[in-house]
């Protein structure tokens, strides 16, 4: 257990509304990641953070923004949700991040349905 929680765990929202997902970690890991998982696509990186206020885009960042004002929290915001953003969202952490040798630990996931 890497001390990662995600909230909410389930959410149903309507097209056009803003949505914020929260990832919280208790072990002061520097690197945090947001992935989405869709059938037939595997896990795709949305955004990642390598420190407070330091973030970068992943391969599917369009329509998403992130913020990290504290080490322990990494927020993912859908400014105006669309049905194509219906997915399962996973947060992950790693101790040192992009060195290629680090294990990533995943949170329990958030199921988002956009109607």
């Amino acid at each position: 257990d890497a001390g990662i929680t995600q909230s909410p765990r389930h959410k149903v929202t309507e097209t056009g509304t803003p949505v914020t997902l929260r990832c919280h970690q208790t072990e002061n890991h520097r690197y945090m990641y947001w992935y989405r998982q869709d059938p037939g696509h595997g896990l795709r990186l949305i955004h990642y953070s390598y420190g407070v206020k330091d973030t970068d885009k992943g391969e599917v960042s369009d329509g998403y923004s992130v913020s990290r004002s504290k080490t322990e929290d990494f927020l993912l915001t859908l400014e105006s949700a669309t049905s194509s953003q219906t997915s399962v969202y996973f947060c992950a952490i790693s101790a040192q991040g992009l060195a290629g040798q680090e294990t990533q630990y995943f949170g329990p996931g958030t199921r988002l349905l956009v109607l």
Partner: protein
Amino acid sequence: QQPVQSPQAVILREGEDAVINCSSSKALYSVHWYRQKHGEAPVFLMILLKGGEQKGHDKISASFNEKKQQSSLYLTASQLSYSGTYFCGTVWGRNTPLVFGKGTRLSVIA
């Protein structure tokens, strides 16, 4: 560019062996393997660094052929608990993020 996993799905009887392959179009720095049970988060299995090493994890082992830009995951004497979706993740450089393949669904039946 996602790594390509094969097969997409496989069904085994308990005790049988399986191999899952992961191929990249780019030179690899490392390969990571994860397993995900239905409705749960992915769980780390092992990392292989360039250099052609092979690692083991109980009856699950993996190899990394840097020259061929591919890795293989070997499941020996499969158990019901091995069922799930296996993902490889590839890293192309020291400071590049992990990119996952689409996964291989493994079902072990009695």
